[in-house]
């Protein structure tokens, strides 16, 4: 662990997916995958236009769409612009993709064998480097902080969220946009040995931000990042995150998780489970970021449900920016409804045993009962490792009126 609970929060979510425009919609689709014809592929031109993108690969364009959505959601760019309104060197980028530029590498190698290097288009050069996705996001929005590209297998998306939080906790940046993206094409389908309709063509993005910097900007947090673990197997990873078998409020399972026999189940069966890849296809390096986006949808709904039910909710208006922005979305009702799941019982109310910060602001988040937290896991026992993360609702402490513009700018420029 490199950050204390509550220190790093999620202040923006962005999606570029077929058939799910919001975290809530993604959650509903994961609960009840739509039958019938597949939704149309996401049209990147609708969000970022066509000009200037001709030579970018599909993964890069999808990433730009998700990043734009997330930065706007986090109020880091104006409604009519793209340059961030905070100093560019206070914003980092962490992108995750395993398959993004496979097509450029393989098609270029094949074209050389058929003809020669002189017949290649020089415009392909940037796409031969795997970090092209993270680079373009930085260029488009003027993000001059550290710029990381994770290509780390099945856990890569969740690892990227962790590294985004680590950059913030280390003081390298005040916030980072974390993007998970994958696409499919002839090369990817051939090398994975899977048909296109099993594979994700989309992206998700989060803005992770130091809680105090979000507060200084007067921006609400949708969730707080809890501990992250990377272990050899699923059971060990979950045990490290939730000692003693405490039951989280929801579990976002690894891709195509098959339930184990009774007695070997790593998370109590009463806990609702979601596999976001049921909704959007096998997601490889995008998975962890997609899971976090869906978990934000779950937290928003669960907290709203608690308030509606007269529970001890964490404050009116919490996460208001993260409700179903597309009210007309009208997707299938999630079943089981996470907000309607009865309390698992006093035992599960045990607190996560993580170091509680001395700071009151941090301890407020660390004391959220496990039953209100979302457990996210990527990778399975056949992968190099399993990565896991807890996402928590945030206490109502980011709802003061926005700080006056002048002192905020002064602080931002103090670096």
């Amino acid at each position, binding site marked *: 662990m490199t950050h204390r609970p509550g220190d790093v929060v999620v202040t923006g979510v962005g999606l570029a997916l077929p058939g799910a425009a919001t975290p809530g919609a993604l959650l509903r689709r994961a609960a009840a995958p739509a039958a019938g014809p597949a939704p149309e592929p996401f049209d990147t031109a609708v969000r970022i236009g066509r000009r200037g993108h001709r030579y970018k690969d599909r993964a890069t364009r999808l990433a730009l769409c998700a990043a734009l959505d997330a930065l706007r959601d986090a109020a880091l760019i104006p409604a009519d612009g793209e340059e961030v309104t905070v100093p560019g060197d206070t914003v980092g980028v962490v992108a995750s993709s395993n398959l993004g530029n496979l097509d450029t590498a393989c098609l270029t190698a094949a074209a050389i064998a058929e003809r020669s290097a002189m017949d290649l288009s020089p415009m392909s050069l940037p796409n031969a480097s*795997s*970090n092209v996705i993270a680079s373009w996001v930085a260029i488009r929005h003027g993000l001059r902080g550290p710029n990381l590209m*994770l290509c780390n297998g099945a856990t890569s998306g969740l690892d990227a969220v962790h590294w985004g939080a680590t950059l913030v906790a280390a003081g390298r940046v005040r916030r980072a946009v974390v993007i998970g993206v994958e696409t499919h094409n002839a090369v990817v389908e051939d090398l994975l040995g899977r048909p296109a309709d099993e594979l994700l063509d989309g992206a998700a993005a989060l803005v992770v931000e130091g809680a105090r910097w979000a507060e200084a900007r007067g921006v609400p947090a949708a969730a707080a990042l809890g501990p992250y673990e990377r272990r050899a197997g699923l059971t060990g990873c979950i045990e490290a995150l939730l000692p003693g078998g405490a039951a989280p409020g929801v579990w976002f399972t690894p891709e195509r998780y098959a339930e184990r026999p009774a007695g070997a189940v790593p998370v109590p069966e009463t806990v609702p489970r979601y596999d976001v890849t049921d909704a959007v296809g096998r997601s490889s390096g995008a998975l962890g970021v997609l899971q976090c986006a869906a978990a934000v949808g779950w937290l928003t709904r669960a907290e709203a449900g608690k308030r509606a039910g007269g529970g001890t909710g964490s404050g009116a208006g919490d996460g208001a920016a993260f409700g179903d922005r597309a009210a007309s979305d009208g997707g299938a009702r999630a079943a089981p409804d996470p907000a309607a799941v009865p309390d698992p019982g006093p035992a599960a109310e045990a607190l996560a045993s993580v170091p509680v910060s001395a700071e009151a602001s941090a301890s407020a988040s660390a004391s959220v009962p496990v039953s209100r937290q979302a457990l996210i896991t990527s990778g399975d026992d056949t992968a190099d490792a399993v990565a896991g993360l807890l996402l928590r609702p945030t206490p109502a402490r980011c709802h003061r009126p926005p700080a006056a513009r002048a002192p905020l700018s002064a602080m931002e420029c103090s670096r």
Partner: protein
Amino acid sequence: MSQLVTGAGAVASVGEGVDEVFRALCAGTSGLGELRGFDRERYRARHAYEIDDRPVPGADLPGRATEWLLRAVGEAAAQAGLGEDLSEVPVLVGTGLRELRSAELAWRDGTPFDIGRLHFGTALRERFRAVRTHTFSGACSASLYALALAADLLASGAEDTVVVAGVDTLTESMYGLLDRVNGEPPDRVRPFDRERRGVLMGDGAAAVVLRREEPGAGTGAGPGALGRVRAVSMNCDARHVTAPDPQGIARAVHEAQWRAGVKPGDIDLVLLHGTGTQLNDTAEAAAIREVFGPEVRGPLMTAIKSMTGHTSGGSGLLSLIVALESLASGRVPPTLGLAEPLPEAEAFRFVRDAARDGGDLRVAQIDAFGFGGVNAVAIVERADR
């Protein structure tokens, strides 16, 4: 807060193991050769700095980068006394091109290759039982970026020991596209020379073991430490997808020195990124001149890509290991092929033609910059300070 380097490993075209690589570089040995794994007729450039380990000459095979990485990590871990068990140690790998060469062979030629091995986690788990593995694909500064992240993990107290590594091999796609955009095809890498014609790729891997140094643990790094990492900066130009930006580079150099608490006048040696391209060398020279000001005549400077080629994501860490060896021995390898420096670098004290005894060298700066404007700069110092 600084960190100790307690082990190092290297594999390159010029040799195997840190001692052999450093000796070869000081002897002015170049790894340059005719292309060994690609069909030469398909390119204008015909040379690269490859590791000559293919069982059948001319017939390429997958997984070579992974093998070098494992050897470099093994050497570093053994020297640091970690043995072969890295089950509790984070391993951060910086690479420009992962195992994309293997993917090219698999897709085009049907060569068997498990696509799950595009990143290095599986191989590191098999060999070292490593679980906390992270493959960063951050172009040509990737391994110094990984070093910066490792330093942050140690400085925060989250870890006591981290392994940092870098590796790359030539991909046909990158070699071919560079060949396409070069003006006149280069026959060798000539960093900072007026007649430089561009970059040629090289094979290589490098690894270090980084340990937390307890504050107040006394002076001197203790027996066995190879040196100390004082600070590493990382940033992004956010300007152009391939071309470097002197301003972004200058910010990275300045930030590294500021984080390390040193001034340009404290730097005794600079391992330049120096790729031999028109753009990099001009931008890097301008940035160094701007940050160093009148002190630019002070430090010795060299660019080892003149002998190793551009080892891409692994190049920064390879330069760092060479810098530590130079600080320890006083010997600085030369920049080969440097006849007449470009105007922006006229004042630089390059080591040319042959290795030079630099005397009492204490602090070194290492540069690494990559496509996408990703810059990282490290400041290291001799262990006995």
